[in-house]
């Protein structure tokens, strides 16, 4: 390279500017697609697990490119643990509602295929939709959030371990 020309200031540990510009929009598109997959779980193929993995893919992309400390989609320790516990609790509580009302765990109260629940109670749990999916979309959303938090927690943990290993 010629002596007079200066390459732009670029830290070797940072990722390339092209990646830094492109990653956030791509991550947003991935997250939007994942939300669509979760919310359409009962009418299209796919569901909570797949959609949650797509959202986690967007977050993991940001963590890898921007680094775990500077990532724009930052998930704190408290947020991860709170969301994980709340969503697991929501799933179990929906199941327990079925157990309390009909005697079988995770009975689809909103769908009410066997007519075991009064119509007034079934209307509360029914998903406002043209289909009669009942609690299936709610379980979809719960599992999606759970998978999203779990998968991104593993990657965030591994990148923090790498940083700790470099410090020691």
């Amino acid at each position: 390279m010629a002596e007079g020309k200066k390459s732009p200031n670029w830290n070797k540990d940072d990722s390339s500017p092209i990646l830094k510009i492109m990653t956030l929009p791509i991550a947003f598109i991935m997250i939007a697609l994942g939300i669509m997959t979760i919310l359409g779980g009962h009418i299209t193929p796919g569901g909570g697990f797949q959609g949650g993995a797509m959202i986690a893919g967007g977050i993991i992309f940001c963590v890898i490119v921007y680094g775990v400390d500077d990532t724009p989609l930052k998930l704190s320790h408290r947020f991860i643990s709170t969301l994980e516990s709340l969503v697991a609790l929501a799933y179990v509580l929906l199941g327990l509602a079925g157990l309390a009302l009909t005697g079988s765990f995770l009975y689809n109260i909103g769908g009410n295929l066997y007519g075991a629940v009064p119509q007034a109670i079934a209307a509360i749990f029914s998903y406002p939709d043209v289909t009669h999916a009942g609690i299936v979309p709610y379980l979809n959303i719960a599992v999606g959030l759970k998978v999203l938090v779990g998968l991104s927690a593993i990657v965030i943990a591994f990148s923090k371990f790498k940083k700790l290993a470099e410090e020691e």
Partner: protein
Amino acid sequence: MSDKIASVRSLIMLFAAIIFASTLFDAIYGFKNLIQPGISLVYNAIGTQLAPNMVTLVVFDWRGFDTLGESLILVTAVLVVLLIFGKGKILDKNINADIDSVNDNEGDDE
């Protein structure tokens, strides 16, 4: 003292193992009466009254309990990753400071 705790712990383990094993064997013994042949055909016939997508219905409606365990596997994976590789290093600095002070206090007591 620690011997006493260990013996109490093994007693609890014994009772838990007995309860678990008897439940399991009872379930295996009585499983013959629980099987309804053709339940899959019945569900295939009536399942689409709930929602158009049969895959999600099987995963979340018919086998909802399985899905609960399946998503708990991920929690277990995260826990094991943090347990094996982290050993408590991953926590925030504030939380770590609390744990360090607690550990120091415990060390003083002993």
